């Protein structure tokens, strides 16, 4: 029943009564039971999935039907659902139960979506492989010796392994798009401010955005439409009419920053990228080379801004208000001991890095300088998007790498080279599966990334659906 099902197809079948939300939920629970021991996509499968599905069936019976009524969705472990455990895959939040619903969760609850479980991730969303989870790595369903990407690796693997019909992730520097690419699913990071961050455990607040991972572009649009919208509890949330005066024409031209794509990308990944571009050209798009001279600084800017914001955000985990708490003689000792036991190595590394770039004597040379270069990158991107309707880049320079292969921090950071720029600039971007490349006998998915102007998600969906048609 559930093989090759999409949200769109399931909606039709649920509404016609061909199967119930309970049948659907049981189908995915069965898959999880059989395969998740190997994949480890979930930190917890909720024990009330069947009850949630029964409630959705009642809604369908009463014809109180929304696009996601009865649809099983996995939730990344940094998004709060009131009364349920949430840990950001960190020991420091072990045993913590959320005090309130994230805005995206309230919206999904209103639609009657079924939350299937908490998806594994890199601790506090810091990483590109889920290897930094305090609760074990998630395996890539296409080759279990490889990573699923990260930080939303559990969400991506859950969709790819047929454990659910869609998932929520969060994207601070590519954490939705990169795992989507590595697992062969669609991942969307929308315009900064379109989806509320209220109830998302913060990493880099000026960069974080919640986004969907799905099997198709159409499904990503359905979840995005369900979770977007102004929320007074997120001060950076955009008013619903923010882009209503901007007219976006049907996309015709796609720009490619060729000079930026020359170094460090696997040969067959670039070939795959070029083939996808050729197909788009055949389907009537005009492909142009464009200069984006400041783009080469994006990764360095990101690895200053993000740790600065993360070290500030993570100061709240002190053993006083929630989660783990170790005893000490003084408050200072409680903080330091709790944070020593609770935080993993990558989190500690980024806190120290963030503390350094914000420290007196270095804040001008690092944080303030990075902030001004960030503005230049944004001006660059805005200028480019005046001349073309979209920008294309690979999502990741390589397909899924082996578990344990990237053991130096810098080699892991360079995996983010093509994804971080839109988090710095706030533009929307999508990763769409564009075929596979072969590594040691495994066919590994490759993602094609499209970027558009602020507020123009529609063009991402138009071009993305064109790529899906092949």
């Amino acid at each position, binding site marked *: 029943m559930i093989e090759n099902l999409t949200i769109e197809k399931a909606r039709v079948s649920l509404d016609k009564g061909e199967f119930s939300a309970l049948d659907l939920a049981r189908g995915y629970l069965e898959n999880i039971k059989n395969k998740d021991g190997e994949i480890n996509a979930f930190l917890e499968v909720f024990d009330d999935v069947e009850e949630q599905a029964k409630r959705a069936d009642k809604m369908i019976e009463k014809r109180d039907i929304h696009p996601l009524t009865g649809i099983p969705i996995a939730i990344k472990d940094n998004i709060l659902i009131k009364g349920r455990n949430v840990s950001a895959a960190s020991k420091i939040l072990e045993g*913590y*139960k959320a*005090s*309130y619903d994230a805005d995206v969760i309230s919206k999904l609850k209103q639609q009657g979506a079924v939350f299937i479980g908490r998806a594994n991730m890199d601790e506090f969303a810091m990483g590109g492989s889920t290897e930094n989870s305090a609760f074990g790595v998630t395996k890539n369903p296409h080759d279990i010796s490889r990573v699923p990407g990260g930080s939303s690796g559990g969400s991506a693997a859950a969709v790819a392994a047929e454990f659910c019909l869609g998932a929520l992730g969060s994207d601070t520097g590519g954490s939705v798009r990169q795992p989507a690419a590595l697992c062969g699913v669609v991942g969307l990071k929308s315009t900064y401010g379109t989806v509320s961050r209220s109830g998302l455990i913060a990493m880099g607040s000026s960069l974080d955005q919640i986004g969907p991972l799905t099997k198709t572009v159409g499904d990503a649009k359905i979840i995005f439409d369900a979770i977007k919208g102004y929320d007074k509890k997120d*001060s*950076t949330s955009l008013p619903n009419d923010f882009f209503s005066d901007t007219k976006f024409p049907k996309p015709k031209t796609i720009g490619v920053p060729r000079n930026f794509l020359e170094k460090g990308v696997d040969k067959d990944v670039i070939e795959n990228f070029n083939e996808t571009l050729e197909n788009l050209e055949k389907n009537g798009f005009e492909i142009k080379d464009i200069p984006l001279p*400041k783009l080469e*600084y994006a990764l*360095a*800017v990101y*690895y*200053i801004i993000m740790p600065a914001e993360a*070290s500030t955000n993570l*100061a709240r985990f*002190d*053993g*006083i*208000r*929630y*989660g*783990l*708490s170790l005893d*000490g*003689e*003084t*408050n*200072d000792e*409680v*903080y*330091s*001991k709790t*944070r*020593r036991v609770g*935080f993993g*190595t990558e989190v*500690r*590394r980024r*806190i*120290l*890095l963030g*503390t*350094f770039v914000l*420290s007196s004597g270095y804040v001008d*040379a*690092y944080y303030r*300088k*990075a*902030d*001004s*270069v960030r*503005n*230049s990158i*944004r*001006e660059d991107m805005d200028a480019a998007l005046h001349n073309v309707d979209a920008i294309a880049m690979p999502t990741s320079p390589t397909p899924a790498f082996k578990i344990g292969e990237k053991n130096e*921090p*810098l080699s892991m*950071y360079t995996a983010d080279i093509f994804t971080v720029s839109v988090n710095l600039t706030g533009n929307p971007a999508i990763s769409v599966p564009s075929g596979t490349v072969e590594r040691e006998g495994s066919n590994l998915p490759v993602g094609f990334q499209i970027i558009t102007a602020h507020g123009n998600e529609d063009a991402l969906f138009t071009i993305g659906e064109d790529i899906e048609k092949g």
Partner: protein
Amino acid sequence: MKKEDVNIKTLARLARLNVTDEEVAQFENEIPEILSFVDSIKKAGEGSNNKISKHRNIMREDKDPHESGIHTDDLLDAAPKTEGKRIKVKQVIKRES
């Protein structure tokens, strides 16, 4: 960035983070390496401080709060140590003996 410019123990103290000796040794190599990489922004030229059109005023009146106490129990439930309706912490000020 030179290794001797980065004092891991001082940073750890500022960040309220206990670090072991092995970690100090590890981070003393890694953090300057990462800083050398991000140093490339120095070649990016002047940068831009033009933020005028990019920021919206999101101030609001400080009024109409929610009813007092409706979230108190939920938030106290999350705290490791409580006493009555308060979160309990170690003594902050000590009497001189």
